[in-house]
């Protein structure tokens, strides 16, 4: 267990940890924005938008994340799109998670009584205003529990980025393994780090649930 504090190993571990947090936070932000937009598309009265939302969810939710990383990292550069490895990873992970965020939000939208939207429209709010001011805020509050599962899965999914040249936590594990340290000790520390991140996300959501519950 002590290897972590020898030979500058801790710096590598810490940098990997911070990179995982950065990757996860940026992906979460992208997933949240894109997922909300996709959910809005899926309930919109415009058929083209609905089809786009459905298509996105079908493709990104049903494709293995590793394949998505491949597609983004090796598919985009030939098309003239060049970003850092981190940005590619954020795009892959964010787009993938957005599909799940969309579906969770959509289930929440379906729990908001139709009368809420009718009242909003009767006041003269537009479709977009009805969604952003009345329906989505209530939908989001009801789906905090399943949403926390999505955002706890995200940092753990981010480990795949390690195989695509992002020096995050899981790639630190690979380096330690190559240096010949005990596999058990390495995985113990890596697991602890992921646990810290997941537990923090879970706590954050529990706090939000206690603050934002909607009484009916």
């Amino acid at each position, binding site marked *: 267990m002590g290897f972590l504090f020898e030979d500058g190993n801790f710096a590598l571990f810490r940098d990997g940890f911070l990179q995982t947090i950065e990757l996860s936070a940026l992906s979460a932000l992208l997933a949240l924005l894109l997922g909300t937009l996709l959910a809005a598309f899926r309930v919109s009265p415009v058929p083209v938008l609905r089809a786009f939302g459905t298509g996105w969810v079908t493709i990104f939710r049903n494709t293995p994340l590793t394949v998505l990383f491949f597609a983004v990292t090796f598919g985009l550069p030939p098309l003239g799109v060049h970003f850092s490895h981190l940005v590619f990873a954020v795009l892959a992970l964010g787009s993938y998670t957005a599909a799940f965020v969309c579906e969770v939000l959509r289930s929440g939208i379906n729990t908001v009584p139709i009368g809420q939207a009718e009242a909003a429209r009767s006041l003269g709010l537009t479709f977009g205003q009805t969604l952003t001011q009345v329906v989505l805020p*209530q939908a989001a509050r009801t789906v905090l529990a399943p949403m926390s599962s999505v955002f706890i899965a995200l940092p753990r999914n981010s480990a795949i980025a390690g195989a695509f040249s992002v020096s995050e936590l899981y790639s630190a594990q690979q380096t330690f393994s190559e240096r010949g340290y005990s596999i058990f000790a390495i995985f113990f520390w890596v697991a602890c780090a992921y646990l810290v991140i997941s537990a923090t996300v879970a706590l954050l959501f529990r706090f939000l649930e206690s603050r934002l519950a909607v009484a009916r």
Partner: protein
Amino acid sequence: MSTSLDQDSRADAAPLVVLRNVNKHFGALHVLQDIDLEIKQGEVVVLIGPSGSGKSTLCRTINRLETVDSGTITIDGRPLPAEGRELARLRAEVGMVFQSFNLFAHKTVLENVVLGQVKVRGIAKDRAVRTAQELLERVGVGAQASKYPAQLSGGQQQRVAIARALAMNPKVMLFDEPTSALDPEMINEVLEVMRQLAADGMTMVVVTHEMGFARSAANRVLFMADGRIVEQNTPEAFFTAPRSERAKDFLSKILHH
């Protein structure tokens, strides 16, 4: 309430809401059949009839919460446009009060009354808050402003819903069975607010089973059955001498039990 002078000046004005030959189906059910209706400025029209007669649907077509299959609906001379920004603007002119209140559950009472003013009318927040406070006082729930809807009684919620609709300064108010979901002891506090509104000259379309309200506040009673307006008259004439068999039957059922 309304003097004969009012009636005369009303008759001169162009009607505020006009329905012409409106038809609507729910699948095989012909829920609105050849509806022709004109509502004048300041008029209080009460819609009564057995359940399933189409009265709620008729009420909801006036701000296009229900679309119609054929016929035209105009408000203040403007035909109801298709779904979109223009319809949203027109809806702001038509207040709606629902059976189930439909207050925004995640917003406080005050925020409920402020939202439309700010987002639809573009009124500055502080002015909207002042207007909201005044309206809440007027309907008797000023002390509840910072509470959430679920913390209020049904009667209080419905009065907030009326204040929310009034905040848009509407030309006409639609009430879709506003007291049907209320405990009996709360019905009067809502009807009292509506009576006051009627006395202040608001144009109102009210779907209700409250015959007392129809008698005391309505200028005209429409009796609907099977998707048609079967009979219309002043409340006095309608309740004392209904002409159609359907209306006689309906009244005998609700008035003598």
